[in-house]
């Protein structure tokens, strides 16, 4: 008897100029399963899902829904077929409210007037049911990335979709949110919804997925049952070789202070309180200091303040002894500050510029790249080619590729290459491995450690506990705009960090409700770990 497949994508081929993004890929999604799609950056996972969602028309191949051949010509058609998607880079209208975004495209009207009340009720009910906490009246531009994702998920639920595509959903979430998302996905499965789940993270696949299809350089390597797999075996399938999952590093030998922050206050854009409330810390040569915390506790504003993107209202910031509290961005950059930004599309890249133009974004004004104001094209090209080679940045047309057309992971690699190659004294890396595959994460981590060993100061801001535990030499936990604890990664554990990150530091420990919450979170993580070990 034939299997009950809700979606079948058979022999899909999709070409872009200079690259075969999908080459004869077959993927079959059973009804009511969580099906992971695993592959390196640029392996063609997002492309395959975009084909299913009607954003791209494949050159070859057939898509079947419930056994019948369908043509998904555009996202509206996909929606009619019950297919919904949360994109890696969210597709939200920034200046609309959360509620507006959710109902956009399927607005209920009566005599041409929007029926907000019913929509609001439905959204709030869904929000309640799946524990997707959102503020329906907040503007999307003012909410955190994590909340934006919840809005995207609500969008799918609001449309009663039965096939849900998640394109790297956990890349932007906190550990707690990841656990919740996993739970939500299991609930969806229980209700008979089918889930396609793109990820790089082995632990997540092992925790929730039933089966897993692996792509390598555009080709389908095969589909395996997740039961019986290990992180190592999955990584091997994905990259085609063994990958070291642990960061290898010598003990750090800190030197003189490079970054000195004293009593820094940064106002918030989204509310009247200060986002950073009088923070003080140092980063020394030869050490990686990590700011850990749940998304939205002032880390973003802290970095803006350091980078000169936001005026600080109190306190001082010194770099190598020079007071740079009021210096403009360029001056800070000249003093030796590099910044891998949190949001690569907002800050890190000019998407419509070519790769080579983006690679010189921080240096185009240097004598190496210009002569009396005229850009030296040859020098830029040579430099870009060197970085592309050294950092394995993959793209369709090399230096002249428009960055917008590159995969998220390779965009990130381009930024990292640019910022590290500047030879900074201080490297601020905000979520540097967001959206990268295990192979690339390992190489970014090695690169950061190499910077440290070369006597640079590295300030890491990360939401990923794995990264927080493995990479830094010191951990500072941030909660509601304050640093609530400093830890030595060798002497702490995930549980302790989790407690401080949830705001249950020394001050409020003992509150029974909070303890219960923390216990629950930790419990879930343990279960996930166990599942991972299995």
């Amino acid at each position, binding site marked *: 008897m034939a299997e009950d497949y809700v979606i079948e994508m058979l022999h899909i081929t999709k070409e872009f100029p200079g690259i075969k993004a999908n080459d004869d890929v077959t993927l079959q999604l059973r009804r009511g399963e969580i099906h992971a799609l695993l592959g390196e950056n640029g392996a063609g996972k997002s492309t395959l899902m975009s084909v299913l969602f009607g954003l791209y028309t494949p050159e070859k191949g057939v898509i079947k829904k419930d056994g019948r051949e369908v043509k998904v010509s555009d996202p509206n058609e996909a929606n009619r077929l019950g297919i919904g998607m949360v994109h890696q880079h969210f597709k939200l209208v920034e200046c609309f409210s959360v509620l507006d975004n959710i109902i956009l495209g399927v607005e209920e009207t009566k005599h041409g007037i929007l029926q907000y009340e019913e929509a609001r009720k439905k959204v709030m009910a869904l929000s309640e049911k799946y524990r997707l906490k959102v503020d329906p009246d907040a503007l999307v531009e003012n909410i955190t990335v994590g909340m934006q994702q919840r809005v995207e998920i609500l969008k799918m639920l609001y449309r009663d979709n039965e096939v849900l595509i998640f394109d790297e959903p956990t890349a932007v979430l906190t550990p707690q949110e990841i656990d919740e998302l996993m739970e939500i996905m299991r609930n969806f499965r229980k209700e008979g919804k089918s889930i396609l789940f793109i990820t790089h993270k082995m632990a997540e696949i092992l925790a929730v997925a039933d089966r897993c299809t692996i792509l390598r350089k555009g080709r389908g390597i095969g589909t395996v049952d997740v039961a019986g797999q290990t992180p190592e075996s999955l990584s091997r399938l994905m990259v085609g070789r063994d990958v070291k999952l642990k960061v290898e590093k010598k003990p750090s030998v800190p030197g003189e202070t490079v970054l000195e922050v004293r009593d820094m206050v940064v106002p918030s854009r989204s509310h009247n309180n200060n986002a950073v409330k009088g923070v003080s810390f140092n980063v020394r040569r030869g050490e990686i200091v990590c700011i850990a915390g749940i998304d939205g506790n002032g880390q973003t504003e802290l970095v803006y303040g350091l980078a000169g993107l936001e005026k600080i209202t109190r306190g001082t910031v010194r770099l190598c002894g020079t007071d740079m509290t009021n210096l403009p961005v360029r001056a800070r950059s000249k003093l030796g500050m590099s910044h891998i930004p949190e949001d690569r599309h907002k800050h890190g890249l000019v998407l419509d510029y070519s790769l080579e133009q983006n690679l010189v*974004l921080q240096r185009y*004004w240097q004598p190496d790249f210009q002569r009396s*104001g005229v850009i030296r094209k040859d020098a830029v090209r040579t430099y870009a080619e060197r970085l592309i080679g050294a950092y394995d940045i993959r793209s369709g047309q090399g230096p002249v590729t428009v960055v917008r057309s590159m995969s998220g992971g390779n965009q990130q690699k381009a930024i990292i290459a640019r910022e590290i190659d500047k030879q900074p004294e201080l490297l601020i890396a905000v979520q540097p491995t967001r959206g990268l595959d295990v192979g690339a994460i390992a190489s970014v981590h090695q690169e950061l450690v190499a910077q440290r060993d070369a006597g640079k100061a590295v300030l890491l801001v990360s939401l990923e506990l794995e990264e927080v535990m493995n990479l830094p030499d010191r951990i500072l936990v941030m909660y509601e705009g304050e640093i609530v604890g400093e830890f030595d990664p060798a002497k702490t554990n995930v549980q302790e960090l989790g407690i401080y990150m949830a705001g249950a530091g020394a001050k409020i420990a003992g509150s029974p409700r909070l303890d219960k919450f923390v216990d629950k979170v930790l419990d879930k993580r343990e279960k996930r770990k166990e599942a991972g070990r299995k």
Partner: protein
Amino acid sequence: MKKKPLAQNAALVSVLASILSIVIGLLIGFVVLLLVNPGAAAEGMAAMLGTGFSSLDKFGKVLYQTAPLLLCGLSVGFAFKTGLFNIGASGQFTMGAFFALYAAIVLQLPWWACLIFSMVGGAIWGIFPGLFKAFFNVNEVITSIMFNWIGMYLVNILCANTPKILASAWGATNSDRTAAIADANAGALIPSGPMKAVFGDSSWINISIFIAILAAIVIWFILEKTTFGYELKACGNNKEASRYAGINANRNVVISMVIAGALSGLGGGIYFLAGTIQYVLVKSILGMGFNGIPAALLASSNPIGTIFSSLFISYLQVGGASMQPNFSSESTDIIVSVIIYLAAFALLMRQLIVKVLTKRKDKEAKV
């Protein structure tokens, strides 16, 4: 050897798409002609399409109108590339014209000095929207529209209170317009240079088209080759990313508007220093600056492309003018606009062509 599929030859498809859009535009334009005056439609169409090339004098007129239009198109396109919508080209054009005329008639300066004056005038009128945008985040569209009106009335007041600039001071009777340049200061007329050998005594022709094309090349060079252009386009594409890269976005907004203003101002200068037209003190904004918007958009703000789009628009306008009296100037304006509007569909047409070609290929493959 494998032949490259037609659908993938980008350049060919682009040219095809442009030609197809223009042909469709002309067809629809013809339908409009039929509706307005069926008897004279064929004749009118012939006049519109043929006039520009019918004589050297008419072609000279096309070039004469192209020069200021090109400069206004460059002004709009340059600002657009840097993320600003300069709808104030008209005001800058008017201000440039006044500065040029003042230099020519009152100060009795030679033509090249008058053109420098015109650029300064336009630049001054461009800097205000730029400053407001940079320091108070006032939308440049609003400020530049207001500055169109302020500029026009200010120039009228200034002219009315400068008796020496008016035609009545130079032997003519009317005081509602500026003096004819030939009477007031023949040295301020833009020379015809080598053009005279080709165009003979055509009153339209002078070297202004070369000045405008030179400006287009300079602007192209700035945008494509210099660090300054790199910064400007970065601000236009992604203001946040340019802040992150340490580019002074506010300074660039102001400079960009100054350059855009200077370009429009130069347009005003060369238009009025040709000697064929006098500035008339009326209460309406000069259209040249607004026509720069389609000239720029038709060329996707590409400076070199703007040369051709403004030639195209001027050619149609000269043709349109010759359709009178069978058609009123308003209806020829409509027809010209329809054709320009349809020409802007080139992008859509390009996708259609690729689609049709790919489908045909699929069918062949199936057979």
